[in-house]
C-alpha cells in the first residue's frame, strides 16, 4: 500500500470518526446521567442534516445551515424531552430504548412527509486541498476533525470547570446523592438532553456535505453510532472519543485492504471486544439495571 493512499485513508477515517464521536457523545452522556438509551439522537442528526440542506438552498451558505441545524435539533430535542422522556426517566433501559425507537421511526416518517423521499445533495463549503507530506487532503475533512476535537475540549471544560458540569459528573456517579444535596436533577437531565441533541444536530450538519441527505440516514448510522458507544463503554467520554477514532480507522483502512470489510469489520471488532470485556474499553460498572 503506498503512502499517499495510506495518508488519505487515515484522514478519511479520522473525519468519519469525528462525526461518530459527535453523535455518540450525546448517547453516552444520556446513558451515563439518565440511564436511558436514547435512539432518537439519530433523529436530531437527520433533522440537523435536513435543516442544513434547506438553509443552504435558501442562503447559499453551508455554515449558516450547520448552525441552523444545531438550533433546530436543540429545539426538537427539548420538545421530545418535555413530552416523552420526562415521563419515562424512572423506567428500565429496554423500555426507553423501545420508546425512543418509536420516536425515531415517527420522525423518519415526518421527514419523509416534509422533504420527500429523494436524496438531496449538500455541496462541500470549502473546496480547497491541503498538502500533508505531499498528499492532497480535502480541507473540509480537516475542519471536521478540528471541530470535533474542539467539542471534546469544550465538553471537558464544561464538565470539569462549571458548576452544572460538575453536578452532571456527580450525577453520572450517583444520581440519588446529587438529588439529596438539593440539586434539581430533572433540570440537569433537560440540559444534558439538549446538549446531546445539539451535538447530534452538529454531526448531521457536518456529515451532510460528505454524503447525500436522505430520510433513512438516521437508521443507517444507528448501528454504527451505538457500536462506538458500546466499544468505548457507556457513559465514558474519553472512551467514546477513542472508540470513535478506532471505528473510523477500521472502516477506512479496512476498506483499503478488502472492500467488503468496510461495513463488516467494525461489527466484528465490537463482537470481539464485548466478548472479552462486556462493559466496553472504558466502561464503568452499571448502577441501575
Amino acid at each position, binding site marked *: 500500500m503506498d503512502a499517499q493512499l495510506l495518508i488519505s485513508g487515515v484522514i478519511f477515517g479520522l473525519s468519519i470518526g469525528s462525526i461518530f464521536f459527535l453523535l455518540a457523545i450525546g448517547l453516552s452522556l444520556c446513558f451515563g446521567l439518565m440511564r436511558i438509551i436514547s435512539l432518537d439522537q439519530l433523529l436530531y442528526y437527520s433533522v440537523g442534516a435536513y435543516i442544513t440542506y434547506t438553509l443552504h438552498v435558501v442562503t447559499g451558505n453551508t455554515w449558516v445551515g450547520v448552525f441552523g441545524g444545531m438550533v433546530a435539533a436543540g429545539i426538537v430535542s427539548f420538545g421530545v424531552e418535555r413530552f416523552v422522556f420526562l415521563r419515562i426517566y424512572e423506567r428500565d433501559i429496554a423500555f426507553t430504548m423501545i420508546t425512543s425507537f418509536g420516536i425515531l421511526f415517527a420522525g423518519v416518517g415526518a421527514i419523509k412527509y416534509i422533504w420527500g423521499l429523494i436524496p438531496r445533495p449538500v455541496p462541500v463549503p470549502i473546496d480547497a486541498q491541503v498538502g500533508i507530506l505531499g498528499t492532497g487532503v480535502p480541507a473540509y475533512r480537516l475542519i471536521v476533525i478540528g471541530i470535533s476535537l474542539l467539542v471534546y475540549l469544550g465538553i471537558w471544560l464544561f464538565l470539569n470547570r462549571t458548576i452544572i458540569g460538575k453536578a452532571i459528573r456527580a450525577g453520572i456517579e450517583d444520581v440519588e446523592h446529587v438529588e439529596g444535596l438539593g440539586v434539581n436533577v430533572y433540570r440537569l437531565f433537560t440540559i444534558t438532553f439538549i446538549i446531546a441533541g445539539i451535538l447530534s444536530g452538529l454531526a448531521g450538519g457536518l456529515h451532510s456535505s460528505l454524503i447525500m441527505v436522505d430520510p433513512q440516514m438516521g437508521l443507517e448510522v444507528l448501528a454504527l453510532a*451505538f457500536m462506538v458507544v458500546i466499544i468505548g463503554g457507556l457513559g465514558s467520554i474519553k472512551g467514546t472519543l477513542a472508540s470513535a477514532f478506532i471505528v473510523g480507522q477500521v472502516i477506512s483502512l479496512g476498506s483499503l485492504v478488502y472492500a467488503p470489510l468496510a461495513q463488516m469489520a467494525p461489527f466484528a471488532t*465490537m463482537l470481539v471486544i464485548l466478548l472479552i470485556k462486556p462493559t466496553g474499553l472504558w466502561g464503568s460498572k452499571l448502577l441501575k439495571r
Partner: protein
Amino acid sequence: MMNLFRWWWGILLTFFLLALVRVFLPLPFANEIIIFSIYTMGCSFLLGRVGFISFGQPAYLAVGAYGTAFYLYYFGTNPYIGILLGILSGVVISMIVGAFFVRLRSDYFALVNLALAVIIFYLMEKVLAKITHGDNGLWFLANMSSTPVLDLGKPSHFFIFAFLVALALWTFYKYLDDSLFGACCLATKINEDKLKFLGYSNFAIRWMAFIIANTTTALAGSLYAVYLGFVSPAITHPARAADPVIVTILGGVGTLYGPIVGAIAYTGMKDLLSGFITNWELFIGLLLVFIMLAGEKGIWGTLEPILKKALFRKAILPRFQESGDKSK
C-alpha cells in the same frame, strides 16, 4: 375433560378466527400474517418471558432462509427437507451463538444481535456473493418438486401447511408456559439471584430459551424462503431489524396471542395506510410511543381482560353466587 377443553379452547378459537382471515381476505395477506406471526413469536418469547430484547432477529430469519435456499438451489428439490434443514441450521447457529450472547445484559444483548444481523447481511451480500449471488438473490421456485399431499409450490396448499405449523407451534408455546421451564424463564427475568439459590442454572435456562426462540425465527425464515421461492440479503437488512420488536409491542409483550394480533395489525396497517399516505412510519412510530406511555400492554394485552370478562361473566359469576348461597 373440562380441563382439557379449557386448555385448548383459546388456541382453537384463535385458529378458527385465523382460518376466517383466509376466507375473507386475499391469500397473500393471510400467508404473510401467518409467517410474520411465527417470526414475531420468537421475539415475543425472548422479550416477554426471558427479558431479552433483541434488535437482531433478522439474523436468525436469514439463517433459516439461507439454510433452506442453499439446499433447494444446489442440492435437492423436496421443500419439506429444505424446511427441515432450515430449522436444523437455526438450531446449530443459535446453539453456538447463544452460548456467548446470553451472558450479556439485556441492552448489550440487543446491540450484539444487531451486530450479528449486519455481519450476516454483508456476508451474504458481498463476501459470499459467489454462492449467494449477492443482491440478485437465489431463485429456486422452479427447482421445487411437487409433493404428494400438500404441494408447497402452490400458495393455497402452502397456507394449509403454514396454518398447521403455526397451530402446532402455539400449542407448544402454551405447553411451555404451563411447564416448569416456562416458570424458570419468568424467574430468570424477574430475579436471577433467587433462581440460582433454588439450584437452577440461569445460563442453561437462558440458553435453552434462546435456542427455542431463535429456532422458531429460523423456521419462519425457511417458510418465507419456500413461500416466496427466492431469498436475497434484503431479508436481513438492518433497517428492518426492529420490525419484530415493534410487532411484539403492538400485540402485547409476553402474551400468547399477541404476536398474531400484532402481525395482523401491523401488516394490515402497512397495507391500508401505504395506500392512503406514503409515510406510514409516522403513524406506526407515534402508535408505538403511545402504547409504551399508556402502560406497554399492546393491543392484545388491553383486549384480553375485556374479552375474558365479557366471555366468562355469565359462566363464572353464577357459580360464585351458588357457593355464596351454600355458605349461608
